[in-house]
């Protein structure tokens, strides 16, 4: 019977991941697309970077699975700290995009040597594993709708290991939807493409920053 219940739970998680994958894709797209587009061209390099990103995302899932089970509470609606967490994650995502996709700390060194900083805007920076890990983990703990649904279910499971396994299979279901991102490795990296990707990253950082601050202000005002 436990084996049957395990396979039913795993199947449910896998199907949930597969079914809600497009939402995961849409939610993570604003982070993944500009970040991958500033990387040098090449499917192999993109596979490596995306692999790291997904590994960090899985780590985020596991942390969340453990947290929901240990808290034994349905985080999605009842948990009062949800807004603080969401606002904080969005601010960290904004910072992550600026650091890893726009590459401002890196650009300072480049600009010092260049005649005009705008001339250098199109150069692709060297790939940074820390970027994949940081952005992957942050998207992993970002409270998107499918993630919350999975969180509710995982909190109801009888043991911590069951909760972790539920999220593992849920993650496996969503991963399939990330494979199309590998096609970005085929896009030729002209200075224009990298510049556009950087501009997108700045816009998205502004968006996440605005959204995060709004959530935090609303939470602070309304309690």
């Amino acid at each position: 019977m436990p084996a049957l219940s395990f396979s039913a739970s795993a199947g449910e998680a896998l199907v949930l991941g597969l079914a809600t994958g497009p939402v995961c894709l849409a939610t993570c797209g604003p982070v993944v697309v500009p970040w991958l587009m500033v990387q040098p061209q090449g499917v192999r390099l993109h596979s490596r970077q995306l692999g790291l990103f997904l590994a960090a995302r899985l780590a985020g899932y596991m942390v969340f699975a453990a947290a929901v089970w240990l808290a034994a509470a349905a985080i999605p609606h009842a948990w009062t700290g949800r807004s603080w967490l969401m606002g904080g994650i969005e601010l960290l995502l904004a910072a992550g995009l600026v650091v890893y996709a726009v590459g401002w700390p890196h650009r300072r060194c480049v600009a010092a040597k260049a005649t005009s900083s705008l001339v250098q805007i199109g150069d692709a920076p060297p790939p940074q594993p820390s970027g994949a890990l940081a952005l992957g983990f942050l998207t992993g703990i970002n409270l998107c709708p499918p993630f919350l649904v999975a969180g509710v279910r995982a909190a109801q499971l009888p043991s911590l290991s069951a909760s972790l396994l539920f999220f593992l299979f849920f993650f496996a279901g969503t991963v399939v939807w990330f494979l199309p991102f590998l096609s970005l490795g085929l896009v030729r990296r002209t200075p224009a493409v990298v510049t556009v990707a950087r501009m997108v990253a700045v816009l998205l950082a502004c968006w996440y920053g605005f959204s995060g601050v709004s959530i935090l202000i609303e939470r602070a005002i309304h309690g």
Partner: protein
Amino acid sequence: MASRSSALVRPAAFRSVGRSVLLTLPIALWSLVMFTPSLRQAGRDSHIGAVVVMLFMTTLFFLMMRTGETYRWRRIFFVALGFLFPFGFIAALVVQRGTMSIPISRMVSGDTPFCFMVTPSIILPAAFARTIIFPGSILPTASNHASIAIMIGLWFALTLVLGKAWCSYACFFGGIEEGFAAIAKRRRLHRFVTKYGHILRLIPWAILVFVVLVSAAIFEPVYCMWLCPFKAVTEFPAVRNVETAIQMGIFVALFIGLVVVLPFLTKKRTQCGFFCPFGAFQSLFNKIHLFEIRFDREKCVDCALCQTSCPTVALSKESIREGKTLLNCMKCGACVDACKKDAAVWHLKGTPVAVKPERARLLFLYGAWAMATMFGGSILANSVATMLHWLPWK
């Protein structure tokens, strides 16, 4: 036909009157077909509006044929469209609901006319979730003829044939900034635009990607909700809280900055060239459609008059050297008209460059002006009828 070669001053009459009239006849007939429904409507104002606009469109086309110039006459139509569209639109809103703002309840009921600007944002949610993230109705209703299906169908058919010419002959927003650009006596910030043009023209692409990604992530038409400068002169969400007040502030700031002040300072269409994500989306269709502007390198003297005259920075020294425009060319004809050496020519893909360019121009203009008459003409006619209706002595 008079020769256009190497004339420093363009000849006053490019074609004879008779020949110009003959070439204008198809457009005159098309206008008649387009405005027949208005002529059948009850009401003297509608009849006058239709006749005035029919004559207006036909006369402008005649002048294009007669003088051989495109940009100057197109601009008259385009600016008229840009300024009369908000007038007619706002008037209709005020009559229907007494205000330009739209309450959320009306939005939810699908009472918002579909705007083509939102098209790129709805593709991903429609593909993945089979959901149209715009509060309009898919099929026309009694109160809303500008439904999603009709607007996208029309736009797609026209864009396939004419490429980004939509932005110069049909978009009812671009004319406002073209008007402000036209009234400025001299070009300011020219050095800045020339120096950073290669960066500025990438911004619409960045906004396009941003809008598409975020719209898919939050299931909202982000451009409409946060970034559309033209909300300030059309329809906007009713200001009820801090969020809608911020939205309204952004709309007004973008409108004043990109549609009024910067076009006046630079004599460029800054919103179209440096901001509009729909324009960037339209640029993709420049790859597949039939008409383009090319440069005859044997005649070109690299004077850069074409580059200076381009209202959207769609030319660079490199592109002119290659004999082409950049992807964001909207075929307004400014560069062709500005070129004193006749090196900039209209071109039909698949034919030799600079051989019978006037034939390519004619073919293009028939399509573009037919679109302008059908789309912009009907808007103009409605606006003229509204103006007549509201005349104080009536």
